[in-house]
């Protein structure tokens, strides 16, 4: 049951992105920025939290979940440390992912070569 909820919510978030891709001239890079920023805003106004409670990874694995984590972190930082906390909180909450992206990204890029498509 848990996995079905994850599958459906995660799948539906991606479907929204696919519809935007197919009906506009926006590129996947635009979609990533739009979804991330939407996640930040929805997280800030408290609309993303219920989705995360309901579907867990179905809501946190899409990039909008990354946005939600950023805004949640920033708000928590602001609560505990004020203005400085607002600057620290977002990146603190997501530091693991960003550091992983930098390290693994670099290593994989160095050890592998792009292959021509067929």
């Amino acid at each position, binding site marked *: 049951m848990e996995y079905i909820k994850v599958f459906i919510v995660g799948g539906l978030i991606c479907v929204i992105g696919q519809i935007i891709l197919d009906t506009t001239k926006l*590129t996947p890079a635009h979609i990533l920025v739009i979804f991330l920023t939407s996640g930040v805003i929805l997280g800030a106004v408290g609309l993303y939290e219920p989705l995360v409670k309901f579907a867990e990874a179905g809501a946190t694995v899409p990039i909008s979940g990354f946005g939600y984590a950023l805004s949640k972190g920033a708000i928590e930082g602001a609560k505990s440390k004020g203005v400085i906390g607002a600057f620290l909180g977002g990146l603190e909450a997501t530091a693991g992912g960003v550091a992983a992206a930098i390290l693994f990204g670099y290593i994989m890029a160095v050890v592998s070569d792009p292959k021509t*498509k067929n």
Partner: protein
Amino acid sequence: MALKRIGAQTVKLSNPPSIISTASIVGPKEGEGPLKDYFDIILEDDMWGQESFEKSEAKIQEEAIKLAISNANLSPNDIEYLFAGDLLNQIITSSYSARQLNIPFFGLYGACSTMTESLSLGAMIIDGQFADKVVCATSSHFSSAERQFRFPLEYGSQRTFSAQWTVTGGGATVLSSTGNGPYITYITTGKIVDLGIVDVNNMGGAMAPAAIDTISQHFKDTGYNPVDYDLIITGDLGLVGKKIILDLLRKEGYDLSENYSDCGIKIFDGVEQDTHAGGSGCGCAAVVFNGYIYKEMMKRNLNRVLLIATGALHSSISTLQGESIPGIAHAVTIDNMIS
């Protein structure tokens, strides 16, 4: 007095230069396509032992030029001018291939129209008695073009149905003041036509108006009709461009449905090879002309051909700035007979 000019945009060559040899080199995917038997060299690996896609493309162009020259039993010293161009920034492919060849060099940028742009200039130079032997060449490479104009190769994106597939390949033509044909008889030089298409995934739609403009002007200037040609073939308009060409030229009173084709449609099997709207790139018109068209003309299966290579003259910067795509198309008549 410009005695050789006829009409607004066409010249009629009074001493038509002869195509005395050609060469075409293609990548593995093109070598699996419907025209595979017409190409001189099919690469097994599109890196061709080089360190980068750019170096591989330069090698493809250089080897195509050398092969065309040796097919004519000549050496590079016999060639008086080299006309070459490609798609990469500052036409580095052509400059690096020319660096190896030691031939006086004119670098051209006409994007995918470079094949007929180089043939036009080479033919006029010979007709004007400035040279006896010239080489016209161009090339493109899927992977070097993709990273310059689109996304990285390993990036997981989907291609739209109007998108085209850049041909990996190079072609070269040796033109001579003497020879037994086929001959270049007419040259219609295109103007930039831009009807405001901004979608870089729809090159066919962006370039079709330029091709229509050049083709109809060619008929007006020369007095030829579509039926006078065995084949009227555009460079890389693909499936979307083909529909537009047939439709809009019919409205102007020219019916091309019998003998029109497009190099981008001919080179790939769109369904089997998943190339969507067809092939594109400088190499597309280059290998189809120097491979398929030239060999069919030598066999007399085709006797008079109108080749219209089409170019989209945008850059990755102009695209980001939202500028529309300027299109160009240059037409060249290639004829087995001269009257």
